């Protein structure tokens, strides 16, 4: 996350930070295609390539929010088309659980979304990113960022904690 995104005292000029965990076999390839097609796609999304959404542990998503993300996308293959058979179904359940956990502590669960698409759907990838971007723009900065700004003007990076899955 660049400094530009940290510690802005108001939401004026605020760019949402969105993290997308994308499966190598589909969503990541679709993101690539979106680039090749030069599709209009919000620039504030950080795409993280995963071997499969089944590798997206709940803690990865939670850690993204803890480090200040305003929205998180988990994007995998079409249901039935996961290269690792059912990884995307497991990911869907984890996303639902993390949504509930976020809700429990007062972070809007809509900030997290699970999507499925094929590697040919570059346009769909751009749509998903823009959709999450709009949603997050309406919600405003993550309540965690807001709480941190109330306390001090700059967000202190959260150090990686012992016990993070490797």
């Amino acid at each position: 996350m660049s400094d530009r995104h940290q510690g802005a005292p108001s939401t004026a000029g605020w760019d949402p930070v969105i993290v997308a965990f994308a499966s190598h076999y589909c969503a990541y390839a679709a993101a690539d295609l979106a680039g090749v097609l030069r599709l209009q796609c919000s620039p504030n999304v950080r795409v993280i390539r995963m071997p499969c959404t089944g590798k997206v542990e709940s803690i990865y998503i939670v850690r993204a929010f803890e480090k200040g993300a305003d929205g998180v996308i988990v994007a995998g293959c079409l249901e039935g088309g996961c290269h690792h058979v059912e990884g995307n179904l497991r990911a869907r359940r984890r996303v639902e659980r993390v949504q509930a956990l976020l809700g429990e502590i007062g972070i809007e669960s809509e900030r997290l979304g699970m999507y499925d698409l094929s590697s040919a759907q570059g346009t769909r990838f751009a749509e998903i990113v823009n959709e999450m971007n709009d949603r997050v723009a309406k919600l405003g900065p993550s309540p965690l960022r807001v709480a941190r700004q109330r306390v001090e003007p700059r967000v202190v990076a959260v150090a990686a904690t012992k016990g993070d899955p490797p």
Partner: protein
Amino acid sequence: MIVAERKPVSEIRDLIAPHDRVLFLGCGTCVTVCMAGGAREVSLMAAVVRMAAELGGRTGLVIEEATVERQCEILFLDPIAEQAAGYDAICSFGCGAGVQHVAARLPQTPVHPGLDTQFLGVLEGDGVWAERCAGCGSCRLAEFSGLCPIARCAKRLLNGPCGGSQVGRCEIDPALPCAWQLIYERARAVGALDRLQGVAEVQEWGKALDGGPRRVVRGDQSIADLRR
């Protein structure tokens, strides 16, 4: 296995509210396999409780994580005892026995429970754990063809079923199978219906928790009294 569930985030946040540096301590055995208190869950809860605290306006709270093989064996707790001086409190994600054993090892450190310990049970299906044994101290499974009416009949009837059993479901909760229906079916399947003819004897509850805290002693496991 011992089955447990995590406490609500707000409860854990409030338990540790008086402390600045807290160790979230997982247990690598029963509560790991029931997905409540192993390394994965502890790391998730640490992050979520940290965020909850920050959202509530707290600053300066440090939560670190560690997981030991078994909290219910003191030897596994030695490394934690060495680290404990660095923390104001520990939140244990072991079962209730684990929490108390950690506390016993660390007489000066507040130790809080992160889980609600539930029962002795089995994995019944994906993500479903169910009670099977109430640790009564005097096992009667042989009389009931291997199904426990103490743990599985809502009324703990040793001479069941009650009059409320309907199409195989328990009258207390139709989501549950009637334990006595299961006992009857299994007795029939294994050719042991005759065992259900008599009246089951009264349970010796003095061997259960009702008789006070219990211990099991195996003299052959200790040579302390042979040492000079």
